[in-house]
């Protein structure tokens, strides 16, 4: 299946979706000019991946910053992962946050409340 590899900028995140190498990651900053346009190929890729996922999918979020419009689209990404999990596949979301960033930690807690998928909070120091 195709690979998504988007290099991050100061307003868009780095995205790697690579089934063959078992890498699923969104990291960096997300405040794109048009969130729907930016996240559309990512959501479409996940729809495709849903049909033939790996036995275990570990999806890493390592965001420094995202705006409220992105928060809605990140939820859409997580809901796709929930679907895969509901289909009986192993999914783990790893939510990485700087250990001094309470807001990012709380954002992870919030998503784990909303979405029914195994969720691991991973603090890191800068």
């Amino acid at each position: 299946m195709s690979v998504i590899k988007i290099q991050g900028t100061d307003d868009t995140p780095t995205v790697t979706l690579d089934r063959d190498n078992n890498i699923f990651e969104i990291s960096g900053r997300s405040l794109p000019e048009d969130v729907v346009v930016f996240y559309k190929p990512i959501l479409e890729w996940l729809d495709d991946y849903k049909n033939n996922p790996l036995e275990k999918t570990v999806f890493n979020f390592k965001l420094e910053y995202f705006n409220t419009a992105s928060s809605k689209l990140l939820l859409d990404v997580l809901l796709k992962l929930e679907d895969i999990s509901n289909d009986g596949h192993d999914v783990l979301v790893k939510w990485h946050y700087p250990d001094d960033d309470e807001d990012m930690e709380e954002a992870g807690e919030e998503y784990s409340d909303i979405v029914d998928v195994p969720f691991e909070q991973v603090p890191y120091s800068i």
Partner: protein
Amino acid sequence: MANIKEHNESLDFVYDFYVKMKRNNINLAYEGEITHQITKAFTSLAETNMAHEEDPSSVQKKVFHVMVECLQNISKHSEGNANESAKDGRGIFMVSKAATEYNVTTGNIIKNVNVEKLRSILENVNKQDKDGLNKLYKQQMREGSISDRGGAGLGFIDIARKTGQKLLYSFLTIDNVNSFFILTSTISRIKE
């Protein structure tokens, strides 16, 4: 100089404006179209400036976040004013820094017919405590969708919960079509 009197008045205005900005601790003031490029420029300017300050990174991140949401509000929701040939997405944007707080203020034109709807949204946000805001945010994220203007309806809720302060706002009637909407968000510089 065609008109020395006018020129002198304009000089007075510049100095007066400067004094007023200083007195009100205004670090940044802008009037015009708020594009994505402007949003990026202002937020990166604020980041650079704040990097030299003693404010904790949590405060700097909150200021950055409030600026992004406020700028995107104007770019997405400000209405043009036919009378003044103003385009959509214009407004005034100000950041001030006092001893104990940052203030981010926006002002933009909205249609009178939209005033009551906006007022009730803001009143509802201001009624909530932290738990209420979190609930509201989750609900809106789950049930809402991205509007054709590219907003998620989450900006005000998130400003309120990240700053822990009430939103200050007012509506000034311009004429029978338009009003001027002013919003001030306060970020405390004192760590809780």
